[in-house]
């Protein structure tokens, strides 16, 4: 019984992580924006599954609602408005500098990955080895934290969202409707 659930957990992790990485690769290589968006939605759903395996149930639900739902709908509307005639996806201008940047970032990430693998025995890396405390990651405990210790950042974020909504309306409004921006 224990062995079966262990195997199932491993299988779920491999499927979710592989799906997330494959979707991300498809996203940045597609020429058509709609195909990239669909792959991105798949990536976000797989990431939500990974959150759920980390006992972050509230965040998993939010990931599907906010990312795979709301933000992707915004992107789909933008793709509808912006036309599809694309120039070559990778322009030659500045290609050398950008390739150098990607290679440097790759080396940095390789070093970080090496460090992470070396430190895999520490407590921080234990992740799902021990069962979580009761109520870990559910709506009640996250909500209690949000409205006690993090009340000020929470209100600041709501102000930032309001500013973003007003700014988005102001920016996306057609320039010829006579309103002074």
């Amino acid at each position, binding site marked *: 019984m224990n062995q079966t659930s262990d195997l199932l957990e491993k299988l779920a*992790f491999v499927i979710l992580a592989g799906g*997330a*990485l494959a979707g*991300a690769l498809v*996203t*940045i290589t597609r020429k058509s*924006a709609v195909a*990239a*968006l669909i792959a*991105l939605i798949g*990536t976000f759903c797989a990431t939500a599954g*990974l*959150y759920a*395996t980390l*006992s*972050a149930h*509230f*965040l998993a639900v*939010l*990931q599907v609602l*906010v*990312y795979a739902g709301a*933000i992707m709908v*915004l*992107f789909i*509307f*933008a793709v509808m408005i*912006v036309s599809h005639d*694309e120039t*070559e996806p*990778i322009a030659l201008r500045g290609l050398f500098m*950008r390739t150098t*940047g*990607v290679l440097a*970032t*790759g080396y940095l*990430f390789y070093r970080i990955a090496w460090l*992470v*693998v070396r430190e895999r025995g520490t*407590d*921080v*890396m234990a*992740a*799902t080895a*021990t069962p*979580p405390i009761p109520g*870990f*990651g559910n709506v009640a*405990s*996250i909500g209690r*934290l*949000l409205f006690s*210790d993090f009340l000020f*950042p929470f209100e600041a*974020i709501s102000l*930032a*969202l309001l500013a*973003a909504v007003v700014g*988005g309306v102001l920016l996306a409004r057609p*320039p010829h409707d006579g309103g002074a921006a």
Partner: protein
Amino acid sequence: MPGHLYILVSLALFFIGTTGVLMRRNALFVLMSVELQLAAGSLALLAFSRGLGDQHGHVVAFFVMALAAAEAAIGLAIVVSVFRLRKKIDLSSIDELRN
């Protein structure tokens, strides 16, 4: 599952997002890659949160999600208004502020 695997997946996702930001010239794809990077960061936060048994990482991931929504709204509004002005959103051709 051991936590370092989650961190490695998060690193790989972030690297793919960085590659997209650096290599793609279409502003829509750059914004999508930025969303990928934000999701990768949240994954690392949640993995460490689970490892430490501390839920503060969940709260920070919640804030990241809210800021990602704000960023997508503003970014896409800028893309749409640039497209209205210039009829294309190729980032390497938008260089009015250079020099």
